[in-house]
């Protein structure tokens, strides 16, 4: 805490972060405070350990995968822009934004496609653009722990890949993934609203 005032002006590069993520200044301020609270030793960045210490995250079966998504390409330090960039995927979709969107600009981070991409990479560990049967098994194993037998899990994985796989290559590509979830209300299920 300390005696410094933490107005939005204190966040480094706040304007570019705002443009990139679409968060309001108030939300960014709250996230910045959260970032500082998690950064217990005041290093200025977050490490894996800082996130692992969140008790409620450690009991989440996919906790490690979620933490991995904050540290892409083997990086070890998470700065505030990187932190917010990942969280931006979960910003609720603003209908106004959709209407006023400039088609020349890149898709906002919280678009339906980007939310789907985020979920996809939780499955696709080796980042080859496909969820193989083996990767499917791995995620399933994480979610059930030791409670389910190997055979049961394998049959579930087989069935799931078979149903989603359209071109018969034995793996689920991103487009096949998106197609099998086309009716899902992703915008609502993968959104977290920050209080004003």
């Amino acid at each position: 805490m300390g005696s410094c005032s933490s107005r939005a002006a204190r966040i480094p590069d706040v304007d570019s972060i705002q443009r990139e993520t679409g968060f309001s200044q108030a939300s960014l301020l709250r996230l910045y405070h959260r970032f500082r609270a998690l950064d217990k030793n005041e290093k200025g960045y977050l490490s894996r350990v800082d996130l692992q210490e969140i008790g409620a995250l450690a009991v989440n079966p996919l906790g490690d995968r979620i933490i991995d998504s904050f540290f892409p390409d083997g990086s070890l330090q998470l700065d505030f822009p990187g932190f917010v960039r990942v969280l931006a995927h979960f910003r609720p979709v603003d209908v106004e934004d959709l209407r006023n969107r400039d088609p020349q600009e890149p898709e906002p981070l919280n678009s339906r496609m980007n939310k789907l991409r985020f979920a996809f990479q939780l499955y696709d560990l080796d980042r080859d653009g496909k969820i193989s049967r083996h990767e499917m098994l791995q995620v399933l194993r994480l979610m059930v722990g030791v409670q389910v037998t190997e055979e049961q899990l394998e049959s579930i994985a087989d069935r799931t890949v078979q149903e989603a796989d359209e071109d018969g290559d034995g793996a689920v590509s991103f487009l096949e993934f998106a197609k099998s979830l086309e009716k899902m209300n992703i915008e609502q299920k993968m959104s977290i609203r920050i209080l004003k």
Partner: protein
Amino acid sequence: MFLLLPFDSLIVSLLGISLTVLFTLLLVFIIAPAIFGVSFGIRKLYMKTLLKIFAWATLRMERGAKEKNHQLYKPYTNGIIAKDPTSLEEEIKEIRRSGSSKALDNTREFELSDIFYFCRKGMETIMDDEVTKRFSAEELESWNLLSRTNYNFQYISLRLTVLWGLGVLIRIALAFTGISLLVVGTTVVGYLPNGRFKEFLSKHVHLMCYRICVRALTAIITYHDRKNRPRNGGICVANHTSPIDVIILASDGYYAMVGQVHGGLMGVIQRAMVKACPHVWFERSEVKDRHLVAKRLTEHVQDKSKLPILIFPEGTCINNTSVMMFKKGSFEIGATVYPVAIKYDPQFGDAFWNSSKYGMVTYLLRMMTSWAIVCSVWYLPPMTREAEEDAVQFANRVKSAIARQGGLVDLLWDGGLKREKVKDTFKEEQQKLYSKMIAGNHEDRSRS
């Protein structure tokens, strides 16, 4: 001496007079009431004045911010994100339902969309979790003129600063008096032969010194239900926010303390105190041995002539917005438990000791440079362990009673989480729930 320095004699005599006046005032208004346990109500008046000043300051600040068109940061104590409390099963079913148009009497085992639930829950905890925010100081929704508590700090006035500075000096003088009297007094009493007179004196020396310390911190304490105060042979259990909790409780009752032997000033105080009356101090090595600790506590409690023990079962300081898991050790002994709830009013001074941020001395200085420490203490009716309960259930029952009385959130998390990683058993709970959904269906089908 006055004759030797005619020039300075005026200054010296002025100094002498002002010091005498100061000490007399201190004696009459603070120390004497401390000794006799009487209060003039000066502190309550001080508190009312402070409240009015804070309200005025907050208005000024808001007006100033509007003029400059800045947005004021309003802290939320209940979390920064909107959450709906649904169970794992409900949410996953809902996710599946929204993704498929088929009727779902026959719930399929696994869907690609199930991952969304865990993903979103995980992100929610990264943005806001119950435990991390309990270990930083409670954020105030209105300001109390201390720059440390506010993100919109502005300098208000010189006169207030001078007043505050004077208060600090007086407090430091009192704290010094209190502590030295405690050490000297208990050592002196320790030399007396054991007996009723020694006990009587020891009790009053302790009480007097704690009361002086209470005034040193300008602590304004309201005690409720004093008829439930702990008795001999019992254990007094309270929620822990700071080391000051001890001073607050001990200034209203005579307890045996339990704790680790410290070095430095604390060690001197501890050694002096134990001469006058039997406190239970453990060496650092002994603390790890749970059986030894339990044995010594049991011995103490079974001796009905011994004082009630004061214990803080959370094991660590929490920021006074919640009560965390109580360690079961004190509840296994089988003595009557006297729960006490302590709630600080954060407006006047934040009493939470963030031990990873501040050392003890820095913390005490912060306490003395706050306006005041205002708190309420509730003595709850005694509880004993019922036949069908085990120690953990008893501990949770006591914890709920304390949380309810103090208006604190009752959490199941272990306060030690802030330092250690959480156990895998909790993760297994989640995994079991999910497995029942996807694999449990086999059993259901075979049964029907």
